[in-house]
């Protein structure tokens, strides 16, 4: 049952300030997440990428400003109703000891279950679909901690898919994966976006991967938005110099035609 999800939930940050009990990490930030697209948040270390994602996912309460989900302040919404619209994959999550792949994925159905409700047919179908989409149907009986890094990450994606939220937020989904698994992971997300019309928002370290997979880029510097828009329009040598303090030459990728940044040597 590939659902028709257009146009998807609207997520927006308005004059957002966020901190971890000290100086603000995100300052006066206003951004809109385009529905049905893949958005990549990029920036230097400590530029506020993960903080922004955490605030968007209501894991961090803003000190000022607000995040709006379909027009309502996300912190005021019942957490279950947010969970039905917004899935999350945090950075390197840890599975409980000995948990099996299928059991992990089933736990993603939590927001759809009522206190006394039974495991329903819909629940079962969602889990099957998530396992199939991530190619884990064969591995469902294996323990998560016995899987390879790439398989484990896919198991977590499958869990987030079973949640059946039209929008997914991911914090550096490719960390600790080798280059082949990174591409596999990003291809999977692109496919989910294309075939299921799911909105994807992710923090990415690799600028070129961001340009290649995202249709919308948010570049942060010092907790503020430096630029936002289509990669082909906003990614310029000048922007990269401002965001990362690095001089690059931007060429067109010979494979995809998206912008490709080639750094010059650093002059000390």
């Amino acid at each position, binding site marked *: 049952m590939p659902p028709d999800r257009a146009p998807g939930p609207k997520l927006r940050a308005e004059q957002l300030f966020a901190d971890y009990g000290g100086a603000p990490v995100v300052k006066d930030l206003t951004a809109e997440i385009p529905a049905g697209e893949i958005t990549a948040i990029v920036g230097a270390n400590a530029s506020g990428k993960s903080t922004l994602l*955490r605030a968007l*996912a*209501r*894991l961090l309460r803003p000190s000022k400003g607000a995040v709006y989900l379909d027009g309502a302040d996300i912190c005021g919404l019942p*957490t*279950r*109703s*947010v*969970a*039905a619209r*917004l*899935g*999350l*994959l*945090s950075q390197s*999550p*840890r*599975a*409980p*000891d*000995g*948990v*099996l792949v299928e*059991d*992990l994925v089933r*736990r*993603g159905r*939590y*927001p759809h*279950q009522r*206190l*006394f409700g039974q495991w329903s047919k819909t629940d079962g179908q969602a889990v099957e679909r998530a396992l199939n989409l991530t190619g884990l149907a064969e591995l469902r009986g294996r323990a998560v*901690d016995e899987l390879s890094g790439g398989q484990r990450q896919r198991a977590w994606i499958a*869990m*987030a898919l079973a*949640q059946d939220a039209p929008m997914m*937020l991911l914090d550096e989904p490719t960390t600790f994966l080798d280059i082949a698994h990174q591409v596999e992971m990003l291809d999977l997300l692109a496919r989910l976006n294309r075939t299921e019309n799911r909105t994807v928002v992710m923090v990415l370290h690799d600028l070129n991967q961001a340009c290649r997979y995202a249709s919308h880029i948010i570049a942060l510097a010092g907790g503020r938005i430096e630029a936002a828009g289509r990669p082909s329009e906003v990614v310029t040598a000048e922007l990269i110099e401002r965001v990362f303090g690095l001089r690059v030459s931007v060429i067109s990728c010979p494979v995809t035609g998206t912008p490709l940044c080639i750094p010059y040597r650093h002059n000390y």
Partner: protein
Amino acid sequence: MTRTAGLCTASAAGILALAVVGLIVGDFPVPAREAIATAVWDRGSEFDFVINSLRFPRVVVAVLAGICLAVSGALFQALIDNPLVSPDIIGIDTGAAAFAVAVLAVGLDTRWLPYAAFAGAVGTAGLIFVLSWRRGFSGGRLVLVGIGVNALLTAVITYLLVRFPIERVSAAARWQAGTLSSSSWGDARTLAIGLAVLVPAAFLLIRRLRVMQLGDDMATALGVGLEPSRLAVITVGCGLAAAAVGVVGPLGFVALLVPHVARALAGALSGGVLLLTALLGAVMLLSADLVAQRLFAPTVLPAGVVTAAMGGPYLLFVLRRFNRAA
């Protein structure tokens, strides 16, 4: 799933078998047929007193207290994501013991014991809550605060043990080891009431706990309100421990050990695994009490000494599992 169901059936059968053995054996053996008859329908039997006033309530208390302790341990271990956590480690039992020892040491009537112990357990749990609350709960902080509270209460008990005459102190020491030897139908009723409320609550919390085990971020993302859920789990876990400790004393290691065994047999936490945990708790306490009664008969050990003795192999088991995980 079928594996869990099979294990549960086997455990239930084990409970029945052990219960029958518990009715039969003792300083005054009763033939099996008469024992069952007396317990179930034959009120006029010559064994009525031995069976219905001594052994039957004791068996029932062992089953109920075992369930309470094991389920409580499973809740705490899932909440704090550490296989070494249990209510006795973080001071709940010591709180009960401090109050109970105070009752014994100052020479109050022993009928106040269960109430004092229950009050002590609940009070200690409250104290640990309050002290570990700091912009929300954290499992690690709860454990460490609990260990501190435990030490403080241990000092109180030590003080009482040093201050008062040896006869009273020895009664207190006996109670402190955890024993089922004076269990009555009243005790069974107290436990049954606690169980009827708290065990269903524990099962309702399982779904939440399964999600909370994925980490705070993932749990929030899946729509679990963390603080209320933690408070609920801790309340139910402490309530179960308090009910059991009030009746049988601070009986160690059932809460720590049983959830582990259940997990090793049936896998990660689920409703079925929790049911297995509850049943295995009853099995463990029933068998520990039988061993305690018969091992050095006619000298009767407190059941807590036997469960503690089982703690040694358990530690080796944990060590082995950890090493394999590494």
